[in-house]
């Protein structure tokens, strides 16, 4: 389809586990991302949610071309990101940028804000009208005082630093921004400012976002479509409304039920999922969620459920043999 800007096909990333210092040998693999496919359309926000260790950040690195996939492909428009040379990858970065989680470690403390935001121009060449003017413009776009170009990161609060990171990502007028937990380190009152900023920028510049977060409420708020990950796989993907109001995968249902709602008249606590996420070095056979699933039967251990549209009212892909909306909602 023409309006797909990013296309991920069956991508996997396995990290080897080795033992020994001199005679290293492989004793296993961490299957961080294990067969993930999705596409990002122009101008939309795709939310990626999942608990820690589900592979969301590895996926972000694969999208950016920082990691090469073990198998599968990531296409940006019609070019395969994983087969690009370094120079080509650098050119691609003009179009695709990353905003990171930690506004404290992702900015160089020895560089002024002007240098940080202007650094992309040092690599990719100065913009029309000069670097200084553009940097001031960028600071203004993200809601910072343009006269603060000579300040250092430590002189800003967490929310302002995240704005600096966003200004840097915007510098080269990218089409796609991968946001890896961009608001997780921020306080609630500041988090809302940054989320509104991201939404405004998207409208203004027609950006497409891949928005990675563990906070389900944040993802619902910002996303058009949502993919839920568990142990390196997408278990359910669909429109924001399909996922949040009509989830069919038991993991999505449990995850949503576990989120406390800021409203004391609606207390949670229907499904409390037992146990922890299994290790990605030795994931369960068949469906990976079956060890914690209340619907699990023999087929779940024997056969891995494909991510496909299942019969039912909600027509979105779900990777469960017994996909069904629960009666609760």
């Amino acid at each position, binding site marked *: 389809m023409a309006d797909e800007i990013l296309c991920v096909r069956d991508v996997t990333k396995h990290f080897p586990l080795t033992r020994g210092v001199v005679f290293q040998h492989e004793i296993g693999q961490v299957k961080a991302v294990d067969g993930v496919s999705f596409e990002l359309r122009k101008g939309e926000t795709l939310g990626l949610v999942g*608990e*820690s260790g589900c592979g969301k950040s590895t996926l972000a690195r694969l999208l950016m071309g920082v990691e090469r996939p073990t198998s599968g492909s990531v296409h940006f428009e019609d070019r395969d990101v994983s087969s690009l040379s370094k120079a080509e990858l650098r050119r691609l970065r003009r179009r695709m940028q990353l905003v990171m989680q930690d506004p404290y470690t992702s900015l160089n403390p020895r560089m002024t804000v002007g240098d940080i935001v202007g650094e992309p121009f040092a690599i990719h060449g100065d913009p029309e009208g000069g670097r200084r003017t553009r940097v001031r413009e960028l600071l203004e776009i993200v809601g910072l005082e343009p006269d603060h170009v000579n300040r250092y990161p430590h002189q800003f*609060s*967490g*929310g*302002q630093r995240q704005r600096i990171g966003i200004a840097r990502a915007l510098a080269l007028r990218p089409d796609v921004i991968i946001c890896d937990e961009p608001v997780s380190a921020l*306080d*609630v*009152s*500041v*988090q*809302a*400012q940054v*989320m*509104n900023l991201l939404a405004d920028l998207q409208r203004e510049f027609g950006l497409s976002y891949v928005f990675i977060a*563990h*906070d*389900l*409420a*944040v993802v*619902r*708020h*910002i996303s058009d479509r949502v993919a839920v990950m568990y142990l390196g796989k997408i278990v359910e993907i669909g429109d*924001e*409304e399909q996922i*949040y*109001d009509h989830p069919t995968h038991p993991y999505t249902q*449990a*995850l*949503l*039920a*576990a*989120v*406390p*709602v*800021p*409203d*004391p*008249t*609606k*207390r*949670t*606590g229907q499904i*409390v*999922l*037992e146990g*922890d*996420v299994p290790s990605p070095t030795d994931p369960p056979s068949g469906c990976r969620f079956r060890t914690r699933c209340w619907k699990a039967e023999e087929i779940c251990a024997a056969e891995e459920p494909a991510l496909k549209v299942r019969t039912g009212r909600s027509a979105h892909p779900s990777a469960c043999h017994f996909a069904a909306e629960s009666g609760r909602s």
Partner: protein
Amino acid sequence: MSPLLEVEDLHVEFRSRGSAVNAVNGLSYTLHEGETLAILGESGSGKSVSAQAVMGILDTPPAYVTKGSVRYRGTELLGLPERRRRAYRGANIAMIFQDALSALNPVHRVGDQIAEMLIVHRKMSRRDARARAVELMDRVRIPSAASRINDFPHQFSGGMRQRVMIAMALALEPDVLIADEPTTALDVTVQAQIMKLLSDLQDEMAMGLILITHDLGVVADVADRIALMYAGRVVEEADVEDLYARPAHPYAEGLLASVPRIDVRGRELTPIKGAPPNLAAIPSGCPFHPRCPRARDRCSREVPGLRLLRAGEGSPDRSGARSGALSPESHRSACHYAEEVSGGR
């Protein structure tokens, strides 16, 4: 009968090379038996520091309690000699922390760490203490506790580690448990497990629970009362349902308008402008006034006290903030225009 725990006008200051940072500036709250009090605040609001002051585990220097009172069942704890204070710590008031991995000793087996509490405080034999440790691990629902007693903290998952820490805190059957961001480092499904465990244990043991958190969702889920902190003070204190339905401080109102909600589609977020204040230079008057949409001249001049808006049912007492015997349903706010804020809805 005196309440379980009373904190009054607590001040904590961090001193360094001639300058002072005022982390806690006149904090007061009361915890009743069996009650869950949530202390809600953003980073730098003084919520953790005040809990450490109550526990008596502040690092001095640099932190000093400069003023105030902490009473456990009527007994003043501040100013007690360390030896007597220690008798209360763990036995009467216990605390669990956010980061279980750094709160547990990595080179000791978890069973020994739990048993240590019993050996030191209860003078139990090592064998009895370890047997009791297994019971405690069972109680916090650690599967096959007996076989895991000799494991080290790194062999447990994040949620299980948090359970170990809860087992340690409960070893001496305290009346007050202070939980400082107990689930912040955990995934939502594990968070739900731990919060359920805490509330079950609270019922079983009839403890008062102080839950320190920044998460408005967690508070709404488990707390009875809530004390909202800003710049080292309580700015609003009320029954949870009352505060969420009728916030009486612009900060509470602003917070509720800035949280995205999982149960509502397409909600507009209205953030609070600006950032939390620098504690070395807290704004004059009401500390929230530079960020407040309702601020007027008076707000930058006069510090608003925490005053009573609505007394609990059947109590016509309107004596104001200093009244010690407040009913648990009372609603207090530190805003000059509190009636206007809560009247607007």
